[in-house]
């Protein structure tokens, strides 16, 4: 009798399974998914309190404030990217499985972005309005954050893979990842600022696209190499 059942599913199927599994887990722990987003709003609120309630003054710094808050929120969210899987042994299975680890980790990172980066993109215009940001800037804001948070997720994932086995490694993660993310911050925040001044934004926007493509294509290899080191005992 001929069996046409494949014993191991193809790579595409596996990536889909990874995506589905992470989404399912996220739905089950939706409160954990929410926390970085709440953090984003709280951090943004700190600035009017610290500086001034005057919308005129806040408007000037609003792109920077939103971007820094997004960076910090994405940093916090990285805690839940790899750690649970490493702790329960799933990651070890993945490393040993013989499947391309870089693609598996990229899939996880992409799902993570859907759960943390994308909501930030959607929330930013509302929070930005609270800081006096004009509606006309929303498209640029959304575009830069969408592209930027993608890069932040990839860079963050590399840092997370490096520090996942380090005890209390969250501050170390921030120290490693934030300097690498500075170019993304520069192009993203300044692009929104330029938009507010009515200047063309094609330059920084293209650079954000280039950075995202660059990081997405090379980042997973660094992630996989780092994960292998972290997971081996």
């Amino acid at each position, binding site marked *: 009798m001929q069996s046409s059942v494949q014993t191991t599913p193809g790579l595409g199927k596996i990536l889909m399974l990874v995506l589905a599994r992470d989404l399912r887990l996220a739905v089950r722990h939706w409160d954990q998914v929410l926390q970085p987003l709440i953090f984003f709003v709280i951090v943004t609120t700190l600035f009017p309190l610290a500086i001034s309630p005057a919308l005129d003054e806040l408007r000037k710094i609003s792109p920077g404030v939103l971007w820094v808050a997004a960076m910090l929120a994405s940093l916090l969210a990285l805690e839940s990217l790899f750690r649970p899987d490493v702790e329960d042994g799933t990651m070890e299975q993945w490393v040993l499985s013989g499947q391309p680890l870089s693609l598996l980790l990229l899939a996880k990172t992409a799902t993570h972005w859907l759960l943390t980066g994308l909501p930030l993109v959607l929330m930013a215009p509302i929070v930005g309005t609270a800081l006096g940001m004009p509606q006309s800037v929303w498209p640029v804001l959304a575009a830069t954050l969408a592209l930027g948070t993608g890069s932040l997720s990839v860079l963050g994932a*590399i840092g997370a893979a*490096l*520090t996942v086995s*380090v005890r209390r*490694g969250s501050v*170390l993660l921030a*120290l*490693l990842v*934030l*300097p*690498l993310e*500075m*170019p993304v911050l*520069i*192009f993203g925040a*300044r692009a929104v600022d*330029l938009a507010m001044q009515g200047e063309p934004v094609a*330059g*920084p926007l293209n*650079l954000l696209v280039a*950075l995202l493509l660059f990081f997405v294509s*090379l980042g997973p290899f*660094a992630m996989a*190499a*780092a994960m292998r*080191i*972290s997971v*081996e005992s």
Partner: protein
Amino acid sequence: MWLWFHKLSSPPYAYRTAGLVRPWLFWPAILLMIVGAIGGLVLAPEDYQQKDAFRIIYVHVPSASLSLMIYVVMAVAAAVGVIWRIKLAHAVAAACAPVGAWFTVATLATGSIYGKPMWGTWWEWDPRLTSELILLFLYLGYMALRASFDDTQRADRASAILAIVGVVNVPIVKYSVVWWNSLHQGPSISKLAAPSIEGSMLWPLLIMMLAFILYFGAVLCDRLRGEILRRERNASWLSESLARS
């Protein structure tokens, strides 16, 4: 020649060679520094615009160049260590880090002091100082990651990945910082540009650069030997070498 290179990657040989080479790097470096300092402080004519303050470049510029150069050396060594699995390369990378970080600190401090009489402020967010600051963060992150692993091998390989990611990002950082700065200054006045340099001002700078490079080589020899010892746990060559030294 290739055979010598292969020999060099063996720890006992490298240990011995570094020990022998060190004085040949160190003393010429000191000599060149004295010559360069005298040249820069006394012999070079004063600058038209910046007067005598420009003499700071003779220590600021070599520090800056070395801080970047060492990072690249560190990253290349780390990459060699990870790709070809040469323990010695990892030892080189580990040895580079603290020295490079200190040069970055020196660059920032001298840059800041240079700025006070030139711009009137102790700090300016100009491209060169800002990217030097980010470079310091990269160094500190590298050293912090190393320190967080107890096992030297894992520390080596993890920090190697970070160094490679870092060095790839250095041009990106530099470009982004220059762009960021250009948005604010209309005419590009490079704030920390060395004054237009002519021959009689240039030679002390070149001498100081060479001096700093030789100095780095000497310090690297010491640190490298320490790193080699740390990695060679119970190798038999140790007892002979240590008895001799």
